[in-house]
């Protein structure tokens, strides 16, 4: 489950922020902001993607580095919320 979420996130980042350049993809634990991969409007695009792809609403208070600044963090956050949404 978590690995397939990660792969979906990686593909989105490669497609949207790296324009297909897989070699530029950072490690799963590296900061996307500090690495210059996504910027402030990029975060909003990421949030819109998560909501559409995984079927839950991202609360404003969830838009924090602990949930969204690395591929690991995003996968963990999505895993926690997507399963809640599916169970509901």
């Amino acid at each position, binding site marked *: 489950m978590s690995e397939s979420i990660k792969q979906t996130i990686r593909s989105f980042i490669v497609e949207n922020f*790296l*324009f297909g350049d897989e070699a530029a993809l950072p490690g799963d634990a590296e900061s996307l902001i*500090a*690495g*210059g991969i996504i910027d402030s*409007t990029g975060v*909003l695009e990421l949030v819109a993607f998560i909501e559409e792809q995984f079927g839950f609403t991202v609360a*404003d208070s969830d*838009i924090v*580095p602990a949930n969204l600044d690395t591929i690991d963090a995003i996968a963990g956050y999505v895993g926690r919320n997507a399963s809640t949404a599916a169970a509901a």
Partner: protein
Amino acid sequence: MRVERFLTDSAQAFPEKTALVTADRRLTYAELNRLTDALAASLASQGVKRSDRVLVFMDNCWEAAVSIFAILKAGGTFSPINASTKGNKLAYIIGNCEPAAILTQARLMPVVREALAEHQGREIAVLSTEGRNGVPEGAGSFMEALEGDATPPAHGSVETDLAMLIYTSGSTGQPKGVMMTHDNIEAASRSIITYLEGRSDDIVLNVLPLAFDYGLYQLLMTFRLGATLVLEKSFAFPQAMFDLMRRERVTGFPLVPTMAAMILRMNELQPGFLPDVRYLTNTAAALPAEHIAQLRGLFPGARLYSMYGLTECKRCTYLPPDELDRRPGSVGIAIPGTQAFVVDDNGAPVPAGVEGELVIRGPHVMRGYWRNEQATNAMLKTGPDGLIQMHTGDLFRTDAEGFLYFVGRKDDIIKTRGEKVAPKEVEAVLHALPGVAEAVVAGIPDPILGQAVTAMVVLSNPALTEREVLAHCARNLEDFMVPKRIVFKDALPRTDTGKVSRRLAAADLEQAA
């Protein structure tokens, strides 16, 4: 007054006070003074002397703040370069201003090496911070250059020397270096501090790039005041910034419209959620009246300043906050100690209500563009009384009381996320891609970005995809210049005389959006 005195005077008055807060380091004025002395001495020992240009190619980090003041202490001219600048543009800037040194970060060294490959044979000292594998190849150690108690040798530089060369997007497509003397920066910062009522107990949050003059001046002005700057790299996570602002008790909050839009799209915020904020500022583009009203609701105790400026004079106008209710659409009056007025095509002042070009006079106006006499002469002209005045290229009008209103640009410059983008610069990159026959770039209204950079492209190779075109742009342009969208067409819209029309393209793209 020379600009490094902003730091040295405050270090004398408030040695133990926190000057700078970043995610990984807090520095007092005394510490900053020592670090900048040491780096200035290191730069001098590497050959940096009076008026030499030194590039600061870094993101918003404490090392950038140290670099800027160290360069000034060595008698040099600092040039802040946006951290998302790519190798080809950095190479152009190196060729243009011939720096004696480049100060950078480990993660940006590949870009520096790529740019320097085009300038083999030039003697340029490079200092870099350490990455995971230590100091990168091709650079000396930035950290080692901060060691010791050395002080910089006498350099003989004076107030009329250049303190800063700051590159701005030019309508011709090539970046232009705006020349600012110590006197220019002294005058601009004094004027802005006056109307903002700046105080030594101010604590200012800056998330705007230090390579953007609005971000840079937050650093310069807080140091001048002996206040505190909280420096962050991005506004990507507003909630995290709000937590930080509450923790640090931030009193000053500079915005661009994109940040305001990001704040106002959040629906869980309560009025007064940042109780320590005393003032907010906005520049780069006008805030919609509705956003002004909503911001005032969220910050009931704070003053809100609508401002307008150009890198070429730092700031032109501000609206006194108590005028906001009466004229929310105005960017106000000339900043203290300067003049701003509207003229017709012959340079004669126009009456209230009539559109014309905004002209600026004062001690904040640049000395010109670096080694670009033609562009300088187009901007700086001699007024009827023989004094130099700056023709901004922006269309304005005034109301009956003389308050100024922005109408539009005379040229095609796009404002996106608060930054200026010359369509020609993006078009030049598109035209360089094999398979692109023609391209025209325009700004399309966008609720968050202000304007979104959008390209209309005619292909000679129909197999080329939008993604490939965007990837090419991302490899060659700063992040904020990369188009948000590419629209493929069989032909570009043209005027009756056969010229490609950016205006018609913009109308088409806007309709398609």
